């Protein structure tokens, strides 16, 4: 067991190193001149050269990579050209919103996915219709889904807000996590909790739509197989009701692949935030990345990529280990 975790840890480090190499390579091929960008367009060539020397851009590539690795490991991601703050500080500002959105969307995707899978497993016309609707929904460009969702639930029905994390008239608790749902509970503030939840619904749903479908389909297929297993037949023979069997035996024994699919989907979810945060004015990393792209702010772009990439790699590592812990068959793989 420990051996397995050790192996996966080594792989994790290798992958993170690979990620750093790629991000560094991106920085190296960028056609712009970061030193000039920092000192300003009207600066003298001497000033640019001095800045380039200070930043180490005049050193050979391998040396620069080692410098970069050292700096990154110590949490220094240079300064944003736009906000003029250290990128690491900016990421700290924007990360909680994205974390809250990504977690909520993951939970929602799980719930929707399992619900749909059970509906599909139970069969029926309604389930097919539901599936068709989801497939159709997932075939439309995401930005359109988001905007139409705002049009329906905000503009027409007036039931959900369109933008932001929380109503701007509320005083936010200065919480320990930066996650409004958690912080408001800690502070005992139902107003903020309700508002934060209402603001989460549309963006989380838009983000969860595709992963939910993926999870549902994985789960439905595994369920179908599990329900043909011998122990299920035994349970049937014992006279247990189909619903109980499905829940007790089916779901438990088919959770693994769905969990893995969930981990995979997390990467897509992270990329999806760039679009979702833009439309729902969600003050997170996606918004930060998008603004940085529009400003050619490369320290910020690469810093965000590094953070999102690391999050993805770590989440999948955890899924992997959790799976191995839960299912003894995997340990031999």
């Amino acid at each position, binding site marked *: 067991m420990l051996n397995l975790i050790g192996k*996966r840890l080594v792989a994790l480090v*290798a*992958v993170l190193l*690979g990620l750093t190499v790629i991000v560094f390579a*991106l920085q190296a091929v*960028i056609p712009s001149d970061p030193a000039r960008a920092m000192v300003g367009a009207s600066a003298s060539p001497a000033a640019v050269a001095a800045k380039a020397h200070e930043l180490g851009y005049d050193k050979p590539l391998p040396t620069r990579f080692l410098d970069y690795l050292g700096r990154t490991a110590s949490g220094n991601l240079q300064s944003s050209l736009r906000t003029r703050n250290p990128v690491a500080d900016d990421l700290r500002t924007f990360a909680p919103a994205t974390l809250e959105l990504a977690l909520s969307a993951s939970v929602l995707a799980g719930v929707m996915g399992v619900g749909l899978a059970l509906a599909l497993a139970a069969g029926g016309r309604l389930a097919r219709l539901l599936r068709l609707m*989801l*497939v*159709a929904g*997932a*075939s439309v*460009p*995401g*930005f*359109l889904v*988001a905007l139409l969702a705002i049009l329906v639930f905000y503009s027409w029905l007036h039931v959900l807000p369109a933008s932001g994390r929380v109503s701007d008239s509320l005083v936010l608790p200065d919480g320990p996590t930066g996650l409004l749902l958690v912080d408001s509970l800690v502070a005992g503030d139902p107003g903020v909790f309700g508002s934060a939840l209402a603001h989460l619904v549309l963006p989380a749903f*838009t*983000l969860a739509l*595709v*992963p*939910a*479908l*993926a999870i*549902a*389909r*994985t789960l*439905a*297929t*595994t369920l179908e*197989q599990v329900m043909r297993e011998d122990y299920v037949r035994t349970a049937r023979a014992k006279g247990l009701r189909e619903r109980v069997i499905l829940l007790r035996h089916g779901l438990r024994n088919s959770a*693994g*692949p769905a969990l*893995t*699919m969930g*981990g*995979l*989907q997390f*990467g*897509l979810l*992270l*990329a*999806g935030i*760039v*679009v*979702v945060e833009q439309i729902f004015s969600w003050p997170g990393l996606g918004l930060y*990345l998008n603004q940085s*792209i*529009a400003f050619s702010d*490369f320290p910020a*772009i*690469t810093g965000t*990529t590094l953070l*999102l*990439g690391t999050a*993805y790699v770590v989440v*999948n*590592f955890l*899924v*992997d280990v959790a799976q191995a812990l839960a299912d003894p068959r*995997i340990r031999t793989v």
Partner: protein
Amino acid sequence: MALAIDRATGDGAPAAPAAPAAPTAPAAAATGGGAPAGALVVLAARLGRGRPSRNRVESDAGAVRAALVPVAILTAIAVLAPLLAPHGSLDVTTAGPFAKPSLHALLGTDEIGRDVFSRVLYGIRTSWLSALGVIALGAAIGALVGSVAGAAGGWVDTVLMRLTDLFLSLPAPVLAIAVVASLGPSLMHTLVALSIVWWPWYARIVRGEVRALAARPHAEAARLAGVSRTRLVLRHLLPGAVAPVVVTMSLDVGNLILTLAALSFIGLGAPAPAAELGAMSARGLDYLFGHPWVPLAPAFAVALLALAANVTGDLINRRIDERTNR
């Protein structure tokens, strides 16, 4: 959402591949994303344990043919777009900007007076061919890496597959954004960036098939007969990997079109004035309320392409299952 590299994932996902041992999971492959390889192998293996019921298989045979019809129509449109379109994709018509849909301009005109119907036809061509291009390139790189690894075995296999795993473990869509943002938006950059992140799956699939086939008696026989290694791979092993690769490719088309659309939305897609469906829809979004046909017509075309690709991919997948299970 729309970094929809996976939109369709959903669809292709769970269709069960047959050979239990081979990591041919087109299921997971459709994610276009990466995953810790070990877990995927397990996923593939577990998914593979099932057998589709006989009734389902028989009804699907007809369904595959039915599902191929829209794909055939769309491909025909893509190829024949220049003949079918009443106007060129860049021609500014006399109807002026924002003309309402009418007999004269079936889907109206866009913000500078180009015929939307014609642009959608050309857009189907661009998007369809772009998606196919990325997939073909990804599959080609993947096939090369996979077959070399599978045929060579030993340390070559180990090195190549560890490299593949590394790429699989990275968040492909996020990297694609970073690559395009760094190189600057152009259709070529976008396609290259996507191809770079798209190949590892194919490498895995091909390698798995090649390894599995290499152990089969006919490959053994060929080897004993003194067939050269290259020839063995090309003639006897690689053809066996074609089916799962095709399945994965068909499932990927929808994903790619939606990914291009999402990149366009954040300003990193096909640059203007290219008639690319995602870009047209993303750029037309400003006119959604006053002139809804401008963004909606290409969006529906995207949905149509994605849907056709997904459904067909799904059914082909089952069909191949059925064949291998027989």
